């Protein structure tokens, strides 16, 4: 097509730079000693070390799952370094003490760690490789009784909360990657919102992988106590490298009676080059427990990066009248592969779940939706609505849908709708004939396709997501 399109296809991943900073990195390999060393570095209490060790032993007995519709060369778990932290990250008195090099890194990523710059009322926990380098707005939040800090700090300052909830939604034995994470996780974000408190700002974690040859294994734990509400955002980037890097995170959400948690992700890990060299393997376990009556958990994800995505943000609808939602846009271009979807497990009465999944495939990308809706015998009056739409751009990509539906209560209502469409030359030509260029046309068509998901993102994120989508897909038609 035109030369502008050509440039756009070859546009570099904007966040592919490397920060030159002295790091404390463990040698590659994983043994019980590695697990002990990580725990020791973090000065953890015994209960946590025990939990890690149990997870490690369990992991050793497990096998990597291969049921997902993705293919990749075997991962050598002994060739990865399980811990890397910028040097001199002793607890900081204030964010002003953050290493200037790190501060600049986050600024290049569009994240300000400066307490003075309160743009858009977002509190940020910045995770660099294995550790949190700073959390903004902590003191404002503390006035309301909200705890928002790095996982490491939560273990030190609020061990009882961590002990009570850690692994309560995703047990260490849950799956291969969750067990690996439980054994070696190094940091992450922690949030607790006390009863009746509505968190006044968006909470956000920004994940950055920097070091080569390391994996990132972080854990996020969010608890909304009775009647509390919180909205949480997650963003991710990594440098361009020719080798694959493993990101195996765990996110656990707990909503008690009448509480509501909204968790939004804009995932933009480095996706590898056009030939499929390099990129992040994003093997993540995310699950929420709508534990209390009338509680609500809502996942919104925009997945544009990663070489391979293996991710199923799920909700266990335990409380009566609880609600689970999953809104997803997953985009694959070039050689990217995504196998993503959700699980909605209905346990309580009159529980309600909604799944809206939009898969976009371009280039040689391969996109699979995998979703499970399970209604247990006690879940009288349960309802699920699933809508699963795929869009194809070009003729060398793939879209697949794997719905699993199990209904154990005859009063339940489960609906599933699916569609597949193709962005055609005719759609683009129609827009061009009205004066829009190709770039504008594609972003218009795609954002129309994703509308139901974007309108569930917080305002600032919705714009970012829309732009990101534009960049990921530019040049894919032609």
């Amino acid at each position, binding site marked *: 097509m035109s030369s502008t399109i050509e440039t756009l296809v070859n546009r570099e991943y904007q966040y592919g730079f490397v920060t030159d900073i002295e790091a404390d990195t463990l040698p590659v390999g994983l043994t019980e000693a590695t697990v002990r060393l990580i725990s020791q570095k973090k000065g953890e209490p015994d209960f946590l070390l025990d939990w890690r060790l149990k997870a490690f032993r369990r992991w050793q007995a497990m096998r990597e799952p291969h049921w997902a519709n993705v293919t990749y060369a075997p991962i050598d778990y002994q060739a990865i370094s399980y811990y890397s932290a910028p040097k001199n990250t002793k607890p900081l008195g204030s964010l002003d003490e953050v290493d200037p090099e790190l501060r600049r890194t986050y600024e290049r990523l569009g994240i300000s760690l400066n307490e003075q710059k309160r743009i858009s009322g977002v509190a940020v926990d910045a995770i660099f490789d294995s550790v949190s380098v700073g959390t903004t707005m902590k003191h404002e939040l503390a006035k309301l009784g909200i705890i928002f800090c790095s996982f490491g700090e939560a273990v030190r300052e609020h061990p009882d909360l961590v002990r009570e909830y850690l692994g309560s939604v995703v047990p260490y034995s849950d799956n291969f990657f969750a067990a690996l994470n439980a054994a070696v996780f190094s940091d992450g974000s922690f949030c607790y919102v006390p009863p009746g408190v509505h968190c006044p700002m968006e909470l956000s974690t920004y994940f950055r992988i920097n070091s080569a040859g390391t994996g990132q294994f972080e854990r996020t734990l969010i608890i909304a106590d009775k009647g509390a509400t919180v909205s949480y955002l997650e963003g991710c980037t990594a440098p361009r490298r020719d080798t694959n890097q493993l990101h195996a995170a765990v996110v656990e959400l707990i909503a008690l009676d009448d509480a509501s948690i909204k968790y939004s992700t804009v995932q933009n890990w480095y996706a590898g080059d056009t030939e499929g060299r390099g990129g992040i393997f994003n093997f993540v376990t995310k699950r929420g427990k709508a534990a209390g009556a009338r509680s609500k958990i809502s996942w919104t994800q925009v997945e544009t990066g990663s070489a391979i995505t293996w991710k199923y943000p799920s909700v266990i609808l335990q409380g009566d009248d609880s609600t689970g939602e999953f809104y997803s846009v997953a985009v694959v271009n070039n050689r990217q592969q995504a196998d993503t979807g959700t699980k909605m497990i209905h346990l309580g009465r009159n529980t309600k779940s909604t799944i809206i999944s939009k898969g976009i495939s371009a280039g040689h990308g391969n996109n699979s939706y995998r979703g499970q809706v399970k209604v247990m015998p006690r879940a009288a009056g349960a309802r699920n609505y699933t809508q699963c739409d795929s869009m194809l751009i070009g003729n060398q990509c793939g879209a697949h849908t794997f719905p699993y539906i199990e209904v154990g209560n005859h009063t339940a209502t489960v609906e599933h709708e699916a569609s597949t469409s193709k962005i055609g030359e005719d759609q683009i*030509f129609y827009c061009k*004939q009205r004066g829009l260029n190709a770039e504008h046309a594609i972003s*218009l*068509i795609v954002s129309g396709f994703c509308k*139901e998901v974007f309108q569930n993102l917080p305002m600032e994120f919705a714009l970012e997501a829309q732009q990101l989508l534009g960049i990921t897909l530019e040049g894919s038609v032609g």
Partner: protein
Amino acid sequence: MLTVSDLRAGIADNEILRGISLTVNEGEIHAIMGPNGSGKSTLAQVLAGHPAYEVTAGTATYDGEDLLAMAPEERAQKGLFLAFQYPVEIPGVTNAYFLRAAYNEIRKARGLDETDPLDFLQIVEDRLKLVDMDPAMLNRAVNAGFSGGEKKRNEILQMAVLSPRLAILDETDSGLDIDALRVVAHGVNSLRRPDNATIVVTHYQRLLQYIVPDYVHVLAAGRIVRSGGKELALELEAKGYDWLTEPDVAGAPA
């Protein structure tokens, strides 16, 4: 305004237009008629720059510039508008949003400021009346779930909002009942100005009762085989196309 000279175009090795010459001046309405497969729609698409067609010979000059060298969006920005025979659906994008995006792209290309949503709404509401459309249509996705008649009317609404210099209507009458046909024709006639021009591509004479052309051209096998005034359309209605597409006539110059 538009001068087409010996234009040849086709898809792959299949030549569809075999030397078309046509001149359109400001203030004129031209009708292009012809049997199915004669190349009428291809001519419309080629003038608008559809990438599926390859131009193999000839020239097209639009306001003194080489039309064929321009990208499709550039042609649109310079005032060339095609009302599609089969308008395309864009799910999730409202008609209002799409129209404003198009309107502003054209303004931008002319060095004008974007129009804000409220001012734009005024412009559109005014134009809606012209095609007798319910304002609720603005909040529906572009052509998604529209009836055939609604799609055609929506094309004329877009034309009314974008107020083109050269409008090409590609079989806008096909599939319309008589009431819809009147509405569409009324819209087109109201938009007629001394400084713009319209090319109406149609199979039937019916539409030309409402949009009265200054010139009628008959296309057969990729060539213009006969040009004349509006009475030519009536002659075609009475005699059909066959008398013009006999081999001995088809080769005659236009």
